[in-house]
């Protein structure tokens, strides 16, 4: 029972309510990093890692600090500071263990802090009242969906490099149009879950 619910949460967050294409979370890096496949995959994995870890830590902070001390109004400040600290740690970790990835991600790594997907996922975990396991699954699913969207976008944008797109539409405008059509296609997943 638990397992199928977890599975549904993951599928839901990654395909049916894809964070980028359906919930509009994580758009800045989505447009910014989706030009090359390699950086897209790297960014996707980094964000998934942060999302999963953040879901766990923030769940604990929310439960044992904010709710215990009745200081819910500090939620926004606390959550974002925890995320910022987490990203710093992840950054140092990657720098130490994979300097190549660190180079490739460059400025985009610290920018994960301002990635609405991370804060967004944790806020949704709270509003949906997920328990620890569900929160973790949700964060993980969100990351998977984000990565899928990034990979699809980057493969398309790499192909579009050689297309004769009108000058004023090159880059971001066409990326948005492509995202729109992919988002249109993803709408077909909406009906699948009712079980």
């Amino acid at each position: 029972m638990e397992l199928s619910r977890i599975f549904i949460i993951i599928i839901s967050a990654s395909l049916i309510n894809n964070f980028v294409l359906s919930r509009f979370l994580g758009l800045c890096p989505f447009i910014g990093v989706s030009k090359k496949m390699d950086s897209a995959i790297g960014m996707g994995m980094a964000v998934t890692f942060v999302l999963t870890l953040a879901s766990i830590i923030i769940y604990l902070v929310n439960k044992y600090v904010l709710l215990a001390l009745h200081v819910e109004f500090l939620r926004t400040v606390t959550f974002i500071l925890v995320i910022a600290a987490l990203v710093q740690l992840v950054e140092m970790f990657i720098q130490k263990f994979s300097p190549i990835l660190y180079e490739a991600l460059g400025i985009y790594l610290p920018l994960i802090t301002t990635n609405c997907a991370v804060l967004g996922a944790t806020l949704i975990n709270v509003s949906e009242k997920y328990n620890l396991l569900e929160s973790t699954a949700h964060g993980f699913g969100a990351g998977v969906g984000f990565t899928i969207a990034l990979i699809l976008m980057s493969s398309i944008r790499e192909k579009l490099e050689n297309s004769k797109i009108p000058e004023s539409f090159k880059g971001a405008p066409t990326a948005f149009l492509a995202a729109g059509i992919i988002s249109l296609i993803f709408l077909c997943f909406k009906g699948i879950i009712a079980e």
Partner: protein
Amino acid sequence: MKIAEFTKGFIKENPIFVIMLGLCPTLAVSTKTVYGLGMGLATTVVLLGSNTIISLIKNFIPDKIRIPSYIVVIATFVTIVDYMLHAYVPPLHKALGIFIPLIVVNCIILGRAEAFASKNNVGDSILDALGIGLGFTLSLTILALIRELLGSGTITLKMLDYGWVWKIKGFKPLSIMILPPGAFITIGILMGIFNHFKMKAEGKK
């Protein structure tokens, strides 16, 4: 105080169409005109608050902790706006949902703090905040207007019994426009058109 600091937020450094920051709330809340207006103004208020405070205390913050301290300032203003909207304009609060607390990660605000408020005096920082904030609000409201008009056939400028709602008669709206694909496609086209005129204007100089 330079007036250019105020006007740059509308075209040259338009936060949505040029710098492309704050995309998440832009696409998410632009389903009704009044929501776009509300989000834009809420963001402007936070921007004003944070730019002002950061510009005032910039000399007292040690460099090492400047980003976290900016975040605390911004988050504080976001929390204030969040609770005030919840208390005084509940329908708007409900419609904007998680995108109100998400103002804290709206890169526009941290960006302006880092790029401008930390390096300029209070007066210029206020103008900067107003210019960028209002440029953001204007772009967001226009986007919301287009989406609502095409997607629902209405223009809603009503909140809590103030204002009005205008409806086109005999128009079968394209429901897709208020769904995510409509958002992406609308902003893609708007950005392309915006770029076109911007490039034309720059080519003429």
